């Protein structure tokens, strides 16, 4: 077996546009996911049983089913209903990019909500008592004490979630999107060079992963410095 890298070189623009598509999908779904995850996490730690139960059900169902099934439910499944096909949202819901972003955002919101909720729960009790003693209202306490510290402490786990999401975006290629994996599938289908096509893309994913790991290390050094062990 001789590796034929001229094909990969010729298709470099395809890989590059795939890379941009992957990063776009990742960015949009992470942003949307985080926006949904915050209120969801607050619901999850609520002392009202039905509020936290509702958030629990959402995260349990999303985390208990495969991403592929969720993606198919949204992209192929929703078209089953005439009401959806005739609604104003249909132009968006028949768009693969929109459906993929929606499915990814829903998925990551569940995982992120659990991460933030766990982080909120592990807030030292003294901090809450101190905030109460200062006469802070509930919302002020969340804004100034609980969330800033909980979000920081969630950073290491969130970095894992971001990397998992990067890998999850590869599923977009199954619903015809031309992300990195989609580019590799096209190259393989055209030239029948599975090793060249997929190893190249694997190396690109690996590089992005390593960049993210590095970036999160820097972020932790910036925002979690107060928790790191003291260096001698």
């Amino acid at each position, binding site marked *: 077996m001789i590796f034929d890298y001229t094909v990969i070189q010729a298709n470099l623009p395809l890989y590059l546009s795939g890379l941009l598509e992957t990063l776009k999908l990742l960015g949009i779904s992470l942003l949307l996911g985080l926006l949904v995850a915050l209120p969801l996490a607050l619901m999850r730690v609520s002392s009202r049983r039905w509020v936290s139960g509702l958030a629990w059900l959402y995260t349990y169902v999303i985390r208990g089913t495969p991403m*592929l099934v969720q993606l198919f*439910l949204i992209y192929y499944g929703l078209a089953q209903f005439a009401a959806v096909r005739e609604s104003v949202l249909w132009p968006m819901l028949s768009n693969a990019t929109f459906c993929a972003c929606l499915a990814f955002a829903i998925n990551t919101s569940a995982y992120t909500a659990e991460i933030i909720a766990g982080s909120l729960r592990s807030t030292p009790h003294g901090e809450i008592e101190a905030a109460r003693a200062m006469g802070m209202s509930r919302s002020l306490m969340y804004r100034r004490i609980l969330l800033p510290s909980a979000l920081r402490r969630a950073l290491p786990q969130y970095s894992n979630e971001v990397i998992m999401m990067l890998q999850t*975006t590869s599923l977009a290629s199954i619903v015809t999107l031309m992300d990195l994996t989609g580019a590799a*599938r096209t190259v393989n289908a055209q030239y029948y060079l599975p090793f060249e096509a997929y190893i190249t893309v*694997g190396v690109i994913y690996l590089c992005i992963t390593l960049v993210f790991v590095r970036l999160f290390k820097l972020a932790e050094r910036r925002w979690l410095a107060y928790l790191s062990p003291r260096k001698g």
Partner: protein
Amino acid sequence: MLNGYGDVILEGVGLTLQLALSSMALAIVLGLLGAAFRLSPIRPLAWLGELYSTVIRGIPDLVLILLIFYGGQDVINRVAPLLGYDDYIDLNPLLTGVFTLGFIFGAYLSETFRGAFMGIPKGQMEAGLAYGMSSVQIFFRVLVPQMIRLAIPGFTNNWLVLTKATALISVVGLQDMMFKAKQAADATRQPFTFYLAVAVLYLVITSVSLLLLKWLERCYSVGVRAAEL
């Protein structure tokens, strides 16, 4: 039930479970091997273990699945003629799926196991040495039984991710429940119904596994007091 497609999908459940359980068995073997490598004092072995877990965990499952399925097919059909076998060989999707998922999740499990091994107090190993056990005996008699308790939470996580990842093998042609649901959806034009049914089945599998592993964890934690805060 489900326009007569209920039975077809239930047939696929068996294949999904078979795939998940077999690949987990392979992953446990590879994970133990990987963890042993990574904790080994022999440098090249430790690097090899590190390389395995970093590379595999840094590449999406789907890419690895496509690589192994299409690449494996390619290699086999190039090597077979050299061995005097001239027919075109199709890879068995179940076997290849087990190998692929086992290989991928072995890397994740090696991390879980490594963390668990490191959580065992050093004195345990030293006591084994003092009794004159060989290092293999210490590994299987002292370390592994204690490691299991520490590994269960991480293992639970890995198992759930693995179960859900089996759905990806349907993309390369394994007729598991996801594949059957797609067929039924195409035939009846009711995709939502069938994918929802499959989602429910996955949820049942993950819920049952959660309960079983919780119970297992309790069994292995008998005699260990939880930290009281």
